[in-house]
């Protein structure tokens, strides 16, 4: 097999007196110390290892950061190997997570392609690329739990559709990362703000809302799976699931100057990527609208819009081509 991914490192910036290159044009490299031949230049990733998996390049980058910290005399944490995420729990394998058929990459016919060295794979159309990307299980991007802030109220245990949070009789708890599907219901419901989300944290989302509304206008908060937006002209903040939309986010959007906030929601569990996501979203929007009525603002400043049938959800996608 010849690996020919058509990519290589561009080291043209390395000049005489800089790190030494070997006869193949790669950096001379000490993998134990992530070091090049220049004492103050460190390297990581595919520039030294050659083509490989992205996750190995990321790990290599982390090792290099530790090596640089040591070189600078800065205390650096050792990087323990993280606990591997075990086998998906049985209850999740059997019905909790929707199966997601893959889309087959369109390719040139083998009879045709043996004749030349042109690219074999033709690439996905945008819709198929989005569908394929939506099969991502968002591992590790879900709940980030703080035992320090937790008040042991059990809310997360009661509301999680996947049984990911747990608590023992002493109130000690946690969220099983293998079971967490990153829908965000526990974050939205946690009364003590002991749960945030690894990807698209509350702070990030609030900052994005304010940034996108810097000039006023309308805002759509939606999930990032549907192909079409409900308010194409509005600024958009897209989240893995609108179950992550909190009342605070909606009120802060209006504080930031939104003339109107649309929340694009699935019609039911079958339609949605996550279990119960649509119901949590409906509850948050209803609560925010009630708050507007309380302050004699038009509740329609926040509007829930059911998105049309989505074609690229796990389990609902177009068949493999």
């Amino acid at each position, binding site marked *: 097999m010849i690996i020919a991914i058509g990519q290589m490192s561009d080291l043209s910036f390395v000049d005489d007196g800089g790190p030494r290159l070997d006869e193949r044009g790669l950096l001379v490299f000490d993998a134990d110390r992530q070091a090049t031949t220049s004492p103050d230049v460190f390297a990581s990733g595919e520039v030294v290892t050659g083509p490989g998996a992205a996750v190995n390049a990321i790990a290599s980058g982390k090792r290099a950061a530790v090596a640089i910290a040591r070189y600078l005399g800065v205390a650096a944490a050792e990087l323990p190997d993280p606990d591997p995420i075990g086998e998906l729990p049985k209850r999740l394998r059997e019905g909790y997570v929707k199966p997601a058929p893959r889309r087959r990459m369109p390719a040139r016919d083998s009879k045709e392609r043996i004749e030349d060295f042109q690219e074999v794979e033709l690439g996905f159309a945008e819709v198929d690329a989005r569908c394929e990307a939506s099969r991502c299980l968002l591992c590790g991007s879900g709940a980030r739990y703080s035992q320090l*802030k937790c*008040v*042991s*109220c*059990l*809310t997360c245990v*009661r*509301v999680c559709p996947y049984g990911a949070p747990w608590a023992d009789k002493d109130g000690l708890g946690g969220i099983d990362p293998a079971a967490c599907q990153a829908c965000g219901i526990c974050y939205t*419901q*946690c*009364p*003590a*703000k002991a749960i945030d989300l690894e990807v698209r944290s509350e702070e990030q989302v609030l900052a994005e809302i304010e940034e996108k509304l810097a000039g006023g206008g309308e805002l759509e908060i939606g999930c990032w799976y549907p192909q079409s937006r409900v308010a194409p002209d509005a600024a958009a903040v897209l989240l893995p699931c609108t179950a992550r939309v*909190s*009342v*605070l986010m909606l*009120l*802060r959007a*209006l*504080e930031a100057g939104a003339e109107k906030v649309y929340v694009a929601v699935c019609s039911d569990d079958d339609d949605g990527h996550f279990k119960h996501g649509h119901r949590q979203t409906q509850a948050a929007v209803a609560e925010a609208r009630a*708050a*507007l009525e*309380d*302050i*004699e*603002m038009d509740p329609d400043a926040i509007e829930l819009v059911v998105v049309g049938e989505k074609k690229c959800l796990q389990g609902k996608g177009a068949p493999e081509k």
Partner: protein
Amino acid sequence: MIVAKPKPFRKIKQFTDPYQNILVVGCNTCVAVCLTGGEKEAEQLAAKIRLHRRREGLGGTVDTVTVLRQCEHEYIEEIKDEVEGRDLILSTACSIGPQALAERYQDVRVVPGMNTKMLGMVKEHHTWSEYCVACGDCVLHKTGGLCPIARCAKELLNGPCGGSQGGRCEISPEVECIWQSIHDRLKRLGMENDLKKILGPRNWSWSKHGGPRTFHKEGFKP
């Protein structure tokens, strides 16, 4: 746990409209657990007040801080920097919180954001029921572990009354007749004969009827 419910916003705005520098203080114990006054709810309420004030052209600032328990001197001492310069504190704790804050911060007006409803337990997510009225003289050992003082509309000691029908109370079909449940439970335990013993008059002076109560525990004091 103490269960409290937010006051209607028309009250909140009456309290807050005349002031300019407002601190909403959340409490991360009972009212967080009953999902009405913890850090999340305090932040939401502050955002709502800010929107209202902007709409009414009232200006001013509305910030939030949350402590673990407003009923502890040490925790509310911790927020003295946040309280500094405020002209109003709005507490989302049970009624103990505003009082504790008023005792500590004597020059700042303190108002309640909540109505304290009961001592209760969660029946299902978002639903709490009253289980105790802090009467000061627990009778659960005589009543199968179910409290007729808190859970009988008439606080009967020898029930049920004639208003018990099909296990429900005459005040509402939603309300369980606790005396029916007490009977059922004692029967299950083979203790129905206990029901033949008349429970005599209680000493109500141990409840709130005897005036404000203080409890001292014996032991070492620093």
